[in-house]
């Protein structure tokens, strides 16, 4: 990975001009010249960065990654379940099994079964560790989404991306370490990528696909004028610094302007797909010049991690018009179509470039969907925290496996349950962190992503 040339070009002369003939303290000088440092994890790890794919609204496991022939066979059969979504709910006194609407078949060498909703991802199963035994603690979108991101289902806590950038530091100071690309806000708003009590530097920077991906990134004056302005600012700040040369904060702030100046170019360059080949664009299903859509998000994610961004989260939709298929499961079709090819293309692209070896790709949602409904011919499915599917791929992950299982109808986890905290602990482990030791002292106690829970799921790890 090479840093973009433009950044070095613009910073060096500025720093040299400050250093030359200055009265600055040696420590301060060092700070000015220093490249941003990375931090060491607890133990050596293969994964250096994460791409976190979040499908918002609750993807039905029994229609995508968890085949249930018995559910088809028993379609229409009444069952009993003490389920949070039907408790005291009028019209839900009786519930009936509802068959999946898509066919499953085996794929790859490993033979993992995937439904026709994800034909492209199906071609990547040999690189994927599929978890069919996920479960979560809440059946509300808001709480389950917050939980999947922060490990906390009610209160605001730092996001997993913040924890990892806090632990690993930044590889590129022209770009934020934690980037979230989302067309709209999902449930729980900015809390899903907030640093909360961790320092603000570790909060997710929101990128909204479209004309201004990062707020205030588009230069309001031409570059050469802005350069003049920043030169003036540097002079003023340097003079101000001359009799305050003991204060590292002043230098840090001074430097942020140069970084921001670089970002104005680095960010558009990262998001400028014009140098990508036709073949690449085509593989993602992107039209040349297109700046929105999940395919764009996936390709942008690859380009961001190439530039050293630690954690890239892609959210496919927002808090409405998403996978929340109460009304009709057929709404899964366009949503799957929106993400399927780009995700497969991303995995293949990473693999081809050798990036999958040290990049972890995570695919998840906040909960699954009920294998039942209040009538057998109901078109939709309800929220289902008891079981859902997620998958991991890439660095350190055992490829081509299926981990855990649900019961014959996909109602409950039957084998090797993985809860949200276990999921987080495993991701941290793959990144080289002991989830019990990645802590932050706040308000009188040490907090961690997994709170007091979580166990690393060894079965997902490549020995």
């Amino acid at each position, binding site marked *: 990975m090479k840093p973009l040339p433009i950044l070095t070009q613009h910073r060096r002369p500025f720093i040299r001009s400050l250093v030359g003939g200055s009265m600055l303290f040696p420590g301060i000088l060092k700070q000015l010249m220093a490249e941003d440092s990375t931090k060491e994890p607890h133990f050596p790890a293969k994964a250096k960065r994460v791409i976190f794919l979040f499908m918002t609204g609750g993807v039905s496991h029994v229609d995508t990654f968890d085949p249930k022939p018995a559910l088809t066979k028993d379609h229409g059969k009444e069952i009993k379940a003490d389920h*949070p979504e039907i408790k005291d709910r009028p019209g839900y006194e009786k519930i009936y099994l509802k068959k999946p609407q898509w066919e499953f078949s085996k794929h790859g060498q490993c033979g993992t079964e995937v439904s026709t909703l994800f034909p492209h991802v199906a071609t990547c199963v040999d690189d994927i560790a599929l978890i069919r035994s996920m479960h979560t*603690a*809440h*059946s*509300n*979108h*808001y*709480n389950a989404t917050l939980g999947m991101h922060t490990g*906390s*289902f*009610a*209160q*605001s806590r730092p996001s997993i991306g913040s924890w990892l950038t806090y632990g690993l530091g930044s590889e590129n*100071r022209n770009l*934020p370490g934690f980037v979230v690309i989302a067309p709209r806000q999902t*449930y*729980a*708003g*900015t*809390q899903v990528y907030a640093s*909360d009590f961790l320092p603000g530097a570790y909060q997710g*920077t929101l990128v909204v696909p479209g004309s201004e991906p*990062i*707020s*205030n*990134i588009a*230069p*309001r*004056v031409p570059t050469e*004028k802005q350069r003049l*302005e920043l*030169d*003036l*600012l540097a002079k*003023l*700040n340097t003079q*101000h*610094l001359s*009799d*305050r040369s*003991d204060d590292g*904060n*002043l230098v*840090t*702030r001074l430097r*942020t*302007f140069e*970084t*921001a*100046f670089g*970002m104005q170019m680095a960010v558009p360059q990262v998001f400028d797909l014009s140098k990508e080949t036709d073949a690449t664009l085509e593989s993602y299903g992107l039209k040349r010049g297109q700046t929105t859509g999940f395919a764009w998000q996936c390709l942008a994610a690859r380009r961001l991690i190439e530039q050293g961004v630690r954690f890239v989260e892609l959210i496919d939709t927002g*808090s*409405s018009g998403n996978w*929340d298929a109460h009304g009709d499961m057929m709404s899964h079709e366009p949503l799957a179509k929106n993400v399927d090819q780009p995700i497969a293309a991303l995995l293949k692209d990473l693999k081809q470039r050798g990036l999958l070896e040290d990049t972890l790709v995570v695919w998840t949602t906040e909960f699954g969907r009920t294998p039942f409904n209040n009538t057998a011919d109901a078109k939709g499915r309800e929220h289902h925290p008891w079981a859902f599917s997620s998958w991991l791929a890439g660095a350190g992950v055992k490829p081509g496996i299926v981990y855990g299982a649900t019961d014959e109808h996909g109602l409950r986890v039957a084998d090797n349950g993985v809860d949200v905290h276990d999921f987080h602990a495993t991701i941290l482990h793959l990144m080289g962190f002991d989830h019990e030791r990645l802590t932050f002292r706040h*308000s*009188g*106690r040490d907090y961690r992503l997994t*709170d*007091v*829970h979580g166990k690393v799921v060894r079965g997902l790890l490549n020995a």
Partner: protein
Amino acid sequence: MTTRHPLERLPVSWFRSLLYSLIVTLSFDQVDSSIVFAQDDSDWFESKVRPILVAHCYECHSGTKSKGGLLLDSKQGWIKGGESGTVIVPGDTDKSLLVQAVQYQGLEMPPKGKLDDRDIQTLIEWVRRGAPDPRISASKIGGMDSKTAQNWWAFQPLPTPIESFSSLWIDQQIDAKLDSAGIHPSEPADRRSLIRRLSYDLTGLPPTRDELNQALTEPLSEFQIEKFIESKLESSDYGVHWGRHWLDVVRYADTAGENTDRPVVNAWRYRNWVFDAFGRDMPYDSMIKHQIAGDLIADQEGIIATGYLAIARRFGHDIDKDMYLTYEEMIDTVGKSFLGLTLGCARCHDHKYDPISAEDYYSLYGILASSKYSFPGCEPKGQPKDMVPLLAQPQIDELMKPWQAKADLAKAAKEKQNAQIDQARKSLAQLEPAKRILIAESKVAEGAKVPFDSQLLERTIPVRVGELIQLTILPNGNHGADSTMIELNIHQVGGAEDVWSSGQLIEDFASSNYRKLGPKTTQNDPARNTEALQKSRIEANWFYLETTKNADLLTDKRLSNGGNSNIHSWSLGELPSVFANVSDSPVSVWTVLPPKSLFVHPGPERNVSLVWVSPIEGSIRLSGFVQDAHPAALDGVSFKLEHIIEPESGNGLVQIAEILSTPIEEPGPSPVIPVAYAVVEGTASDAKVHLRGDPEKLGDAVPRRWISVLGGQSLENPNASGRKELADWISKSPLMARVMVNRVWQWHFGQGLVNTPSDFGSRGEPPTHPELLDQLAAQFVESGYSVKQLHRWILSTKTYQRSSQSTEQQREIDPENRWLSHFSRRRLTAEEIRDSILSSSGNLDRSYGQEHPFPPTQTWTFTQHDPFNAVYPSNRRSAMLMVQRQRRHPFLTLFDGADPNASTPVRQTTLVPTQALYYLNDPFFHEQAMAISRQIQTLVHDTEKIDAIYLQTLQRKPNTNEAQAILELVKSYQASPEDAWAAVARMLMASNEFHFVD
């Protein structure tokens, strides 16, 4: 499924494990280790005995309270006994003083009143069983050894205030420590730095040019500094700035924080009260009392102040289900803000480190849950309710009475009118079918025009006065919502041969929904137009009716339809209607309406009629047509033309019309009663312990009382919530004074004497200058809890007035500047940055804001899919910006504003590139810079401009180098002067000098 608080799952369940397992393996010197109890005994003790001890004995015999030298909160306690000797001899009820005392034999315990018999029997049984007591950790209170707790520095009484106390005394304390650390303090700050420091510190705003000028031209004597401090303390900006500090601590927000993050419309009243309370230096103990129990001690102001509790965050989808989290949030905030104690940590089990037990937690929980809070609304439960009126009932009555009287009158008149109309309507509805003669009926095909002449209308119809001719348009099937053009002419046969025509209705169409019109004049017969004849002509009544079942007058008038003001209509609600193009030209709307044309527009399954009431006895002939005027490939309409031969019908209609035309005086909008988002008393009851914090696993009820380590007092009046007592206990605690004094110190120096300002417990840091902290707290109490007096003492110290220049020696020995050898330079807060920008551009509005421009409550349809989200532009001080919980204000978040979801004792300062992007490209920032540039364009010389722009942004003149650098930029910028100088203004406002206080 329940949402669990993460704290409840802390790995340390030592409390319970101790109860149930360790007892059999541990032994103590003083305890007979041969007594090993079955687990049953432990359980029995926990469920039966312990509650009695907690409820009736702990008040005087637990924690730091050991009346008569006796502690009953631990096994060691009763084994050691009290001043009266051995209390319990296990197994021997006769020799056990406890047994005698509770039976009021000799001793009388508890002194407040004898226990009930069942409790006495339980205690006797306990002793008889050998006094099984698993409380082996009992020399602990919560997570702290009780001896340590008793001696914990923060809980100690305050020292006697010394008479020689002064700013000088403070300096002596600081200097002594510096001396012993071997650090040389810095020189006094220069005047400019000091004035700027004081100004930001007290008001959050830069000093004015005049203030600086004066300070720089005159010698800055102590007297002058004091005068400057006083002037700042008097300014209303002081209250806003220091109020904002407090709002950080009380996690102020303008939204509720539940899944839809609804606006809390009246939160601003609490916010402004805080500004005001600091502004007028309300005694701090009184501020506490107001915020906890203001509704019980003061009127309007007190109610508003309880916003402190009311603005607690709500959680989840149905907030009533997660109120336990909201109570936790309140307990946590009360503990941190007033006492510097992390009380919230005792929700799932006793505090891990501090002397706070789960019972303490639930005793407070009971107090808070016995109150009632304004309801912000939530997705499943609709709109806000239970706001607290700010007027007393008599005032409300006084305001409401005249309006209510009017409203009652209007209601009565309306009811009377309705009764009359019903009566009249009945007489119409009860018409015999025989009295309804069909003259013609026909379908009108889509787009077709059906003239009456083709329907055998040559015949003559005899009419009497009051009989009706009714043209009814019927929708076909369920469609029918079609524009149907009509014309109905009634020709008198014989007599005056008058003609009444529906076309006459178009003129003045909107004037009334029924019309009395004379016959149409015939233009081509001037002989018939004589004045005399006109006068003799008889007027006929016309009505527009909805006639599906009854005959209802169309009463709703519109002067614009389909976006066109030439189309006037009468309708009953949305549909059906009669309308006219009243202009002289065709109007093109959903279809083309010819000039001066009349239409009927029936609703689906709803008929509309035009009725003519005969004013004559004689004969008539009819002409006219019905035309579907909006062809749309549907099934057209139908019409019926009928003669109603009941004269009373016409009279009935006239009667209804007359009743309706009698105006009823409307009462107007109801007077607005100001309300607050606040707290009132609820149903008083004790709360049950949530076992391991799980609200569905309830343990025993805990009496509402004060936390044991601070006294454990019980309620004076258990029939009230207990907030009044809670307010007293807090405001009399020495902790509260220490915590507040430390906060004020921290807000001046950037760090407190205790560096963990919301944690004075064992996980917090001890004070760097304990004597100073204690004496300051004592003086604070002595001054009548005057925060402004604290400012005066602190700001007049040499310590505060030192330069921010540090030496290598200082930094080496004391890198964090805990010994205060120099002033710690600080970056401005988010609010200070934005206010300074607005102040530089001259656009700052320093008035108090009130209600935010939220959408009207009745329109709220927020869901978790589509939650409330808004950013309201404002030029007011940033402390007045709308603070949202779920989606943080973009500017405040970017510059490290307070967390609106949890008490923020110290703002963190981050310096990140996304902040720099704000100065490069933000439109608001650019606008302010442009405003400055425009203001200086009137000046002629560049040097004047440079001076002016410097004064406006940095309150000083530039030196030669700076002026030179700016001139260079302006010269090489190659843009309009306005743009070039705006660039200069931006860079000055982006500079480190602008952002840091020396």
